[in-house]
């Protein structure tokens, strides 16, 4: 299982492991299943770019974001 803290390049979010409040907090930042993000810096913290926005994500959170490589 590939998680965001280990990924590089362009990845698609498959799943977010966590309670509803946690998933909601991430969704408010645009991090939701189906979204494609680009990992800019592996950090930690991981820095990703989603559409026009850059977001810094702590390692603990990045570990709970399951991703797959986007073609």
């Amino acid at each position, binding site marked *: 299982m590939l998680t965001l803290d280990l990924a590089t390049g362009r990845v698609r979010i498959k799943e977010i492991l966590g309670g509803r409040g946690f998933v909601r*907090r*991430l969704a408010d*930042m645009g991090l939701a299943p189906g979204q494609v993000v680009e990992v*800019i*810096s592996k*950090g*930690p*913290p991981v*820095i990703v770019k989603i*559409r*026009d*926005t*850059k*977001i*810094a*994500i*702590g*390692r*603990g*959170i990045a570990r709970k974001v399951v991703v797959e490589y986007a073609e």
Partner: protein
Amino acid sequence: MQNKVYLVAQPNSGKTTLFNLLAHENCYVANWPGKTVEVFQAKIVHHGKEILLVDLPGINSFKALGKEESLTKEFLLKEEEGVAVVLINGESLYRSFYFAIQVLEMKSKAVLVINKSDYLEKRGIHINLETLKEKLGVEVVQISALHGTGINRLMDRILDVLEGRVKGKGLRIDYGILEPYIAKVEELLGSRSLAVRAIEGEEVFARLSEDKRIAVEEIKKEIENKFVNPEEIIAMYRHRFVESLLNSAVKEVKVSEEAIERKLDKIFFGRFGPVFSIAILFGILFLAFTINTGFPMNIIARFAGYDTIAEFLGKYSLSGIISLFFETISGMLDGILPDVWLKSLFINGILAGIGAVATFFPLILVLNFLMSLIEDSGVMARIATSMDRFFSLFGLTGKTVFPFTVSLACNVPGVMASRILETDGERIRVALASPFVICQARLLVIVLFVVFLLTSPALQSGIVILIYLLSATLFLAATKIYGKAVKEESSELLLELPPYHFPSLRVVWWITWERSKSFIYKIAGFILAFSILAWLMDYFGITNVIGTFIAKMFSPFGLDDPRLGFAILMGFFAKELVISSLAVSFGTSDLSEISAQLALNAPQAIALIVFIAFYTPCVATISAMHSEVRSYKLLAMSVVFQLLIAYILASVTFILSSIILTAA
């Protein structure tokens, strides 16, 4: 009036800004015909033509069913009614266009307005208006409602559409496999846009005859049987349309700003990012320190031989000016008022309290202002990110660096700055641990004690360094311990990194004021109450009792002078008072004289300095903590913990230094 213009947009597109700009305060509230909902309207004149401008409620989606949203929908369904001015939010093009094409499908008499062109320019995003015009079949104008650019052109285009000089051909999106069905429904309803709406499952046929309605329902069932939900198919084609539209009409040029952003980010997120961040924070701290008390700039100036500058900095620093002001007033009142207890309450209780509030407030303003500068410019988010790796070792996020840094200047705004932290748990942990950070007021007391009580320069600097190391360790350890109390032992960073830009003074001032005013509303009252309490305790002789008790606590170290106990008690109200209270009880302001009378040996002096550095800082900080934490239990825990730690540390350093110094 026939010339009606309707503003249609999603929330946050700048619709209200645009409306106010166009309305020139000619706006009034009117009832929507047949509804109880009120809308803003304005009569405006452009090139001699009267226009009625209607501000429709902002809607996020066409699925919304609220009373206000239904107005917007009702307007859209009346094809011939007025001109639609559809706003695109430049900050979120994709979402805005997805919304706008649905409006344009229904309204061919429309002008598309791309707002926030200032933002687009800054990001180097170029939009080809001709391509959009060609693909969407309407006039397109780019504006900045905030800066008022492009407004005249917009009004000209609106007039063109109103007077029929420009005829929009209407937007027709190809729905592929659904086209045959759309054609069938269109035949029944007489309108393509209504047909698409009907297949999407919207109640567009309120006025249709019974048999037509059944016919439409049957076509929908047919689609559902053959494919999936028609709504999903329609959404898919719309997404495709927006994607290809943006691909052909929007270009993000890497402007120099982008290059600068990449370079700066490379520094912040590289190996030396934390060093760079700390350098910025220290620069700010240096500035705040100097503005506040003149220190350390005055020392540097003196060192460089500019004595007049040094003196000026010391005398005309914020705290210098304010304390001079209050000393003058209380001196004047002292001479005028009759000598009764009320006068003493007024001067030493109330006026002293107001004076304390007045000394804190400018410092808080200055620190909040400097912090807002780096916050609004996008630098703060980078510093937080670069410091995150270090702080995550202690279950904190990199954002903690801000309350920590501010606390180095003054704990009160430091505690208040904990508000920027994301989760309640982290906020409380940091707020409660802040008093362990040595503030500037304490630093000055420590420096004076170190200079007058210790003789060896090596010992002097060694103690100051030791205190700062202990301070950082205690702060981090305390956040861990308080984490157990609030059941959140670690927090994680999740932070948007906005593009860098020069801070706008208006925004910075707005943030500064927003943060600082809560000091007046929530904390000032507490400080005043404590000041009156201190006066009462003094008046009824309670302070002496407590002072003697404190001195007893220190008798194991041989520090049993009640005047010292009294000074420590006063330091609870404000650390600076330790010095002035010693001066009063020894009858001299000459510190070398006082230290000669105290006749402390090195271990005693070290224990005293360590205790003064770490015991509960001041009532203002406690008041600030109360306003952030809102729990007397946690507050009491924090105060007791600080007293305990200070006492234990004093004992340990006393014993250790006794052993080391006798050995040496």
